[in-house]
């Protein structure tokens, strides 16, 4: 009888682990509890003991492979009479992948421990205090432990704040905290004292400190309080995703899904998004493409409109380096390289990835076309290397693939601008006071108004438009 060795759950929110080292070879005799392999999850390496004695008969997951929790990574044949899985912390009746219909999942306010195993990979979000983070850059994650809101405010306020509160007879739990973990900062308490001399009924600014399970009141920004950088916070999911008895099916997000979700919400919270639209004539480029298409095909290159757009973007970025930059606190980081990322949807429509053309300014049209073919193909077939998605300085996305006219893309952090290319199609337009049929498309540019003002965005877009409309792209 053989015993499966599984990827242990090293923490309830960890959905996967990477095998970094096998300490035993196939055929080796092993004792139960002897170190068998090493895994690595975010910043943590762990040594995993064998769950049973016997002979290592098969290694299913090789070194370097990342597998979900509870996936079988090896098998032990053997002597031992199926010892209990000592290696698996939390020997839950684990349903590895495909979660069968989970038991009616708990409402969001349910205690973390009470969650059924099948939804274990969902972020076990304990209700967080209804507070924003102190400044837009430091992102608040869930606090350790499960302190009630009031306690968090009281216990974790600094001595200075407690002293001021005591002097003014203020109950700290009544003050909306904008510090880390909902801590009441000195500014909070001073504002509170200043703005709430007489607690007028009905206009009380401080959210009552009851563990309200329903919509928490949005944090009140006291008048005159400095708006935190970014000015936004990521609220908890306060509206339950479904009501009791509603027929639903719950499945865990893939890692990619989670990362996209986080990245997008983070971007919206940190950047001041503005989108401008330009109507661009692609007629010259369409003709050039038609004339070159055949030659390129013979070289094994599929020529799309994208390399033309990238060339135009590169020229624009050279003229307006503010769009090829990043924000670091109160500093501007100008990127010396022009590395253009292009969003590629995965074939099943579930997920996307943004491979990067490094030093796009050093490539001509043909070089770009080849690079785009290559990266696109490897993205769709999941053969990208980690390096292929790093160090982008500007991104392009394609809301027009299925006919979309235009989009308002979300900036790919830490970049400050992203170009959306709508459907390129023939349209009747006025040219020299006559109606003509031309290839046209709407280009949209979302940019971070912290760094890029409207005028600069417009100048950049005008440059892109001009480049494309001039045609004869090299």
């Amino acid at each position, binding site marked *: 009888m053989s015993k499966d060795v599984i990827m242990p759950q*090293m*923490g*309830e*929110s*960890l959905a996967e682990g*990477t095998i*970094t*080292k096998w300490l035993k070879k196939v055929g080796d005799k092993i004792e139960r509890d002897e*170190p068998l392999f*090493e895994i*690595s*999850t*975010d*910043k*943590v*390496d*762990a*040594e995993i*003991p064998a769950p049973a004695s016997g002979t290592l008969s098969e290694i299913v997951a090789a070194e370097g492979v990342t597998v979900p929790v509870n996936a079988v990574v090896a098998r032990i044949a053997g002597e031992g009479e199926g010892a209990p899985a000592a290696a698996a*912390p*939390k020997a839950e009746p684990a349903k590895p992948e495909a979660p069968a219909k989970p038991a009616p999942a708990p409402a969001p306010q349910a205690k973390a421990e009470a969650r059924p195993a099948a939804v274990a990979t969902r972020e076990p979000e304990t209700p967080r205090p209804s507070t924003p*983070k*102190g*400044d837009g*850059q*430091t*992102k*608040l*994650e*869930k*606090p*350790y*432990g499960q302190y009630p809101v009031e306690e968090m405010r009281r216990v*974790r306020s*600094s*001595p200075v704040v407690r002293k001021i509160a005591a002097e003014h007879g203020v109950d700290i739990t009544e003050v909306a905290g904008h*510090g*880390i*973990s909902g*801590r009441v*900062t000195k500014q909070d308490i001073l504002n509170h004292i200043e703005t709430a001399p007489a607690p007028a009924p009905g206009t009380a600014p401080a959210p009552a400190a009851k563990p309200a399970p329903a919509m928490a009141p949005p944090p009140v920004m006291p008048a005159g309080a400095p708006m935190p950088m970014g000015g936004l916070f990521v609220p908890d999911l306060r509206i339950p995703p479904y009501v009791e008895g509603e027929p639903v099916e719950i499945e865990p997000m893939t890692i990619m899904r989670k*990362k996209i979700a*986080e990245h997008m919400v*983070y971007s919206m919270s940190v950047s001041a998004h503005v989108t401008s639209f330009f109507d661009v004539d692609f007629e010259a480029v369409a003709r050039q493409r038609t004339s070159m298409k055949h030659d390129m095909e013979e070289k094994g290159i599929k020529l799309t409109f994208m390399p033309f757009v990238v060339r135009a973007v590169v020229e624009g970025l050279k003229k307006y380096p503010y769009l090829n930059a*990043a924000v*670091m*606190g109160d500093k501007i980081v100008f990127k010396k390289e022009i590395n253009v990322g292009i969003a590629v949807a995965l074939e099943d429509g579930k997920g996307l990835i943004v491979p990067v053309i490094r030093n796009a300014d050093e490539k001509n049209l043909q070089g770009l076309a080849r690079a785009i073919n290559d990266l696109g193909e490897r993205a769709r077939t999941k053969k990208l290397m980690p390096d292929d998605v*790093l*160090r982008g300085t500007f991104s392009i996305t394609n809301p027009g693939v299925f006919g979309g006219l235009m989009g308002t893309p979300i900036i790919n952090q*830490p970049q400050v601008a992203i170009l959306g290319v709508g459907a390129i199609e023939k349209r009747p337009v006025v040219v020299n006071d006559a109606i003509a049929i031309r290839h046209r498309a709407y280009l949209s540019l979302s940019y971070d108004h912290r760094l890029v003002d409207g005028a600069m965005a417009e100048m950049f877009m005008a440059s892109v438009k001009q480049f494309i409309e001039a045609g004869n792209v090299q």
Partner: protein
Amino acid sequence: MSSRRLETSFLGRVSYDEGLRLQEARVAAVQAGTASDALYLLEHDPVLTLGRSAHRENIVASSADLSRLGIQVFECGRGGDVTYHGPGQLVGYPIMNLSPDRKDVWKYVRGLEEALMLSLAEYGIEAGRFERLTGVWVGQEKIAAIGVRVSRWVTSHGFALNVTTNLDHFRTIIPCGIRSYGVTSMARLIDTPPSLEEMGRLVAVHYARVFDREVVWMEEREPAGRPA
């Protein structure tokens, strides 16, 4: 129920390999059940350490530069990529058994961050978390790095908090493989940073609070007072 003992010591300057030996011995003892949890607080000679998942190319300085700066390079078994340790940086090695009630490495790392954030807050430094990047950040600059190893639920390695660290030394590497963001230190953020020992004692107090341990100081000297 009384809290478990956390035998805490401030060791001053310790070489990196001596620190490793110290940890190994204690991990074995804690695993064997012959010693209680421990927290070693110390600072290292200048050294670059490569975690298990490290990429050599994240060391950007030449070996000539490194030896000129007196920086050694070590490979070790913790998680994470390249890290710099050196004088002025408070290094903490908690050797703690997460069994039976804290068997969650993700929460453990979050707890480490929490203890450091609470300690920094006492000096008026609003530190927090940043994106999904482990560590403690002030804005977009990292002030404390974290890399942990767990062996049979006993932790080793831990955190490195820049108090008065020479930040120029970080230019020899891409810290933790993260290119886009910088590093900072307490000295850069406040006028009068604490001594390493003072900061170590403060971190120990918050660590013990977060993890519900009782700090037991392992030397005869009276602990330095906490800042007002």
